[in-house]
């Protein structure tokens, strides 16, 4: 029988795999998966699910911080849909404001195609266009407020210098232009982000598909709508969903630029919720508004993903 030296015994012990805490490999993988999920899931439950559930409960109650809760049934919903003109304005404005997504996508697609072509300094253009996205929204609001300013604003200065207007335009103070003006700023901010997503999508379309199409007889325009657009569909719908989310939650830009005014010309659901809860202290009513916004929003997101074929954002060219 072979004998083992102490050195060999130590080396053998070091080589021997440590017995795992959980014996089965599959169980270990499941535990590991949940361990990774716990931090994100905790934040999601604490800051998303619980407030949403609380809002849902609140929307069926009369509640204020100083009085005990009382069951209200559908009172707040009736109030909202039958009597509240501001809610209707906010809903209409939110729907209009959602147009920032498709408009931004169309513009970003044009830019993405431009910076994807063989133009010189395209890397520089990509950076410049993307620069607007990481800016803080409050900063964007301040910049655009200055651009729109009646007295010292750049737009009025240019329009007057070109002789196109005699009197300065009150972009943010006029009922007819305020919402469009804020939308322009929102589009400017998100344009770079859309462009990057679409550019990635464009770069995933193999060049030989265009070559095959050109040999097959498709001109540039036909290549665009028979090859580029269908293959970009996941990227476009990803942008659309992100754009819709952004427009629904675009509180800070409105808050800084117009605070919902003039009147309620730029009031969105999100700003109206804030106003109801924290300025008018109608937390129960704000809860009902939040539930409606959530249902509205989730329906649009599901619809967009459905139209995208359930693969929004997917990159698969095979």
């Amino acid at each position, binding site marked *: 029988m072979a004998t083992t030296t102490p050195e060999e015994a130590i080396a053998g012990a070091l080589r021997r795999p440590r017995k795992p805490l959980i014996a089965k490999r599959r169980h270990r993988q499941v535990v590991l998966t949940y361990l990774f999920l716990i931090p994100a899931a905790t934040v999601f439950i604490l800051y998303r699910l619980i407030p949403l559930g609380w809002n849902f409960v609140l929307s069926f109650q009369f509640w204020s911080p100083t009085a005990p809760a009382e069951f209200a049934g559908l009172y707040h919903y009736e109030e909202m849909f039958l009597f509240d003109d501001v809610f209707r304005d906010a809903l209409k404005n939110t729907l209009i404001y959602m147009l920032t997504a498709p408009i931004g996508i169309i513009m970003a697609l044009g830019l993405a195609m431009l910076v994807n072509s063989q133009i010189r300094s395209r890397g520089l253009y990509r950076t410049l266009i993307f620069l607007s996205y990481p800016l803080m929204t409050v900063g964007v609001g301040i910049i655009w407020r200055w651009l729109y300013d009646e007295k010292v604003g750049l737009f009025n200065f240019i329009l007057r210098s070109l002789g196109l207007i005699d009197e300065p335009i009150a972009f943010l103070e006029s009922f007819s232009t305020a919402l469009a003006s804020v939308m322009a700023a929102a589009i400017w901010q998100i344009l770079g982000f859309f462009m990057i997503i679409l550019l990635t999508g464009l770069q995933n379309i193999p060049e*030989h598909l265009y*070559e*095959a199409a050109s*040999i*097959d*007889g498709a*001109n540039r325009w036909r290549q665009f709508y*028979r090859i580029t657009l269908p293959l970009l569909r996941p990227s476009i719908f990803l942008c659309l969903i992100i754009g819709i989310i952004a427009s629904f939650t675009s509180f800070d830009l409105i808050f800084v630029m117009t605070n919902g005014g003039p009147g309620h010309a730029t009031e969105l659901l999100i700003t109206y919720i804030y106003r109801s809860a924290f300025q008018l202290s109608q937390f129960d009513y704000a809860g009902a508004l939040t539930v409606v916004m959530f249902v509205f929003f989730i329906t649009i997101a599901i619809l967009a993903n459905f139209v995208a074929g359930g693969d929004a954002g997917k990159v*698969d060219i*095979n």
Partner: protein
Amino acid sequence: MATVTLNSLYKNYGETEVVHGIDLEVGHQEFVVLVGPSGCGKSTTLRMVAGLEDITRGEIWIDDTCVNELEPQHRDIAMVFQDYALYPHMSVFQNMAFSLQYRGHDKSDIRRRVLAAADILNISELLERRPKQLSGGQRQRVAMGRAIVRDPKVFLFDEPLSNLDAKLRVSMRGEIKKLHRRVATTSIYVTHDQVEAMTLADRIVIMNAGNIEQIGTPDEVYSKPASVFVAGFVGSPTMNLLPAELTAADDGLAVRLDNDIALRIPETKRQRYANYVGQPVVFGLRPENILWSPNGAAQNDALIRRTAEEIEPLGSDTLVFFSIGGREVVGRLPPNSVRRIGETVSVLPEMDAMQLFDPASGKAI
């Protein structure tokens, strides 16, 4: 009638010239294969014919039309790409119908043509599928179907089989050959695989570093390579190439390979090589022209005895490697002729099949 003519064709990328003025005529219904190593300019040449690359200088004619300035869609060509280039979001039917939609065919005609092409290629049952639901071979068939459905003047193939596994490649090679016999369209085929070139081509164009080294039938480029490059490129294993010296023998010429090996030049070749006596040459001989001679008479001055350094049994025959003058030589010998490394192997070179090349220019003498 469809011919393709390249006149002094040049291609530059910036300052770098990659195709150096090539001339080529592809006849009506001819199947010409451009073959060469990576970077030799064969794909670039094909893409210039397709209109996917601009021409720096020279002319490309399809029949009697100079197509230099024509867009790809106006050249009446069809191309099969290496990566198939099937439209992933379209069904097989839509892929094949795509080109017909832009050429004024009505729906019933498109359907008829697609079904006919699908029938030829045995893909009728795949018409509703998307490319990602197909195997590599099926995708390749669809790519060919897309090309033949239009009945173009010229087919261009850009390494269409290189993404397939070895077995499928052999069967698809046969399919392409059958297809060409059936539709008889003028074809230019690019590959780096010389076996593919040999088996498919009516004529082979061997390219190297942007130049044409040789144009000829598969037989010609194999048995009469125009240069050392061609000799070393065509064939598997390739031709044995050995530095040698041409010397005058008692009653003729001999090629000296090593101190102990001087092989007599056959009488039929003496006149051609007479001017090179005393000069260094490159001696070339195909492995199958090295004959096993176990009972070769020792006094036969052509008999070469060497030690086998490596053996590769291939079943039908055995490749035996040995050295002459420090250079490796391979002979294709009968199976089991040499069983072990280190055994002495006796061979006789078949001198009627030998080639001599000028070592300076690399060209055949």
